[in-house]
């Protein structure tokens, strides 16, 4: 299985994965494993997945992304999916797909801000 195709960077305590190339089933699955391993390795408390570069997200890739978020949550990390294009959002909703298990935000900045809020509310409990 190909691995390391999508760069996963640590930025100020959180992980940022920016998907710039269209994913097929194999690379999407590789990404899921890479991102979970990166969480374990870097002990990051937040993950931002930027999909600005994707002009199409089919149900398989959408499922991989939401599952990744739910898996990360089991590990103790919140995930924010950012940068979904209007065409992608419209298509997924029309297909009946709901992005359960992940937070969403407009862009990377907003995603980072949301993670900070989620973390402070959790730490405050």
């Amino acid at each position, binding site marked *: 299985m190909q691995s390391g195709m999508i760069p996963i960077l640590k930025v100020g305590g959180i992980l940022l994965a920016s998907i710039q190339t*269209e994913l097929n089933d194999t690379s999407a699955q590789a990404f899921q494993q890479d991102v979970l391993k990166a969480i374990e390795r870097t002990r990051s408390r937040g993950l931002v997945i930027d999909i600005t570069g994707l002009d199409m997200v089919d149900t*398989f890739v959408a*499922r991989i992304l939401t599952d990744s978020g739910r898996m990360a949550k089991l590990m103790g990390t919140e995930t924010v999916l950012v940068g979904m294009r209007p*065409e992608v959002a*419209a*298509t997924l909703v*029309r297909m*009946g797909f709901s992005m359960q298990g992940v937070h969403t935000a407009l862009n990377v900045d907003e995603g980072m801000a949301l993670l900070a809020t989620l973390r402070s509310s959790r730490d405050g409990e």
Partner: protein
Amino acid sequence: MPARVLATQEMKIASEDDVVLVRRAVRSLAERRGFDSFASAALTTAVTELGRNIWIHARHGAAIIEELEDGPRPGVRVEFKDQGPGIPDINWAMAGGNSTASSLGLGLSGTKRLVDDFQIQSEVGRGTSVRITKWKRF
């Protein structure tokens, strides 16, 4: 008056990469024919779902891409054909939430919602054919 077929292109589907090639061909055709980005994304997503079905369930098949014209209105039709195992119960398969293999259950019903026309025929042991059509909106 039936729609006129301006051009036909057949592409094989025998690998995951072939699905990507078919998706790219359809996207570029939709753009060339003046589809807006929403219609283009819907069509390309439908093509990816159906192409993947062939790869996952039948392993081999073909996509026949047609450029259509209905009066002044451009359209794209894609037929996905395979000689795979076929679908025993199309109504069940078309109902949302049902899934086999590694599909997700939204596949066929979700795909139908993305296009203007959706025709499916399947015979167990003989194969499946799905034909989708999308028209440019003005």
